[in-house]
């Protein structure tokens, strides 16, 4: 068994694709039309293109409980997913210049440093650096 795909629920797939590629720097991997308003749309890390794919899934549009769950997590400030980086402070400064909003600025938590930003698609995403 292998971890190949992890899902992130998004309100708007096209907007999500722009955010995840243009701001975060991911690379589009698969884009397969499924119906009029949904695609099997995945992105991967630029440095690890054979690594796990992130599926930008439009579940909040089609499944009410997904919408409710996503909104509850977002309002509580809880990050849905986390990505590892080498330097949280550097990434925070880079993304802030691009207009990305952070709800948690770089903060040390024991043996990690974290920061949390709004992905503009309904999710809080956490950046993590191992100290």
């Amino acid at each position, binding site marked *: 068994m292998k971890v190949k795909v992890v899902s992130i629920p998004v309100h708007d797939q096209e907007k999500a694709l722009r955010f995840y590629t243009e701001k975060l720097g991911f690379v589009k991997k698969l884009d397969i039309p499924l119906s009029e308003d949904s695609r099997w749309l995945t992105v991967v890390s630029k440095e690890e293109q*054979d690594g796990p794919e992130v599926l930008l899934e439009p579940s909040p549009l089609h499944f009410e409980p997904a919408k409710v769950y996503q909104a509850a997590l977002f309002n*509580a*400030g809880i990050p849905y997913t986390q990505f590892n980086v080498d330097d949280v402070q550097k990434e925070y400064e880079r993304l802030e210049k691009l207009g990305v909003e952070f709800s*948690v600025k770089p903060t040390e*938590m024991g*043996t990690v440093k*974290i920061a949390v930003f709004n992905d503009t698609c309904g999710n809080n995403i956490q950046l993590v650096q*191992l100290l």
Partner: protein
Amino acid sequence: MTYYLKEITRIKNTCYANQGQLDTVIGTRRYIDHNYDNELNLQVLSHIRFTSKFHLLRLFKRYYGQTPKQYLIDKRLEESKTCLANGSSITEACFAVGFESPCSFSTLFKSKFGLTPTAYQKKQLSQSLRRDVF
């Protein structure tokens, strides 16, 4: 203040209140990161951090979830991927990252990544050829 921020503060105060212990384990991890290609063992690491071997072992496992030895092996295996991708032989990669036996290196590599160092190297080569062709 959001629920998550409150939780972060609570966890920080309850689990990560001992800065001295944190400095010890963070310093140990950094030392391993910079010296993984040398001969390293618990004796050396505890000597550098002025602490007892078993105390360091317990602390490291508590804060990082794995022992210093497990962390060192993972670090060496990750670094060996770069050596192999750059064309080093199995033996060269093995010694470059601090392992002493190509045979145990191959066994550890396969158990962590699911393929042998040779298979990994072949895969990397075919992927880079494919990228050049297309």
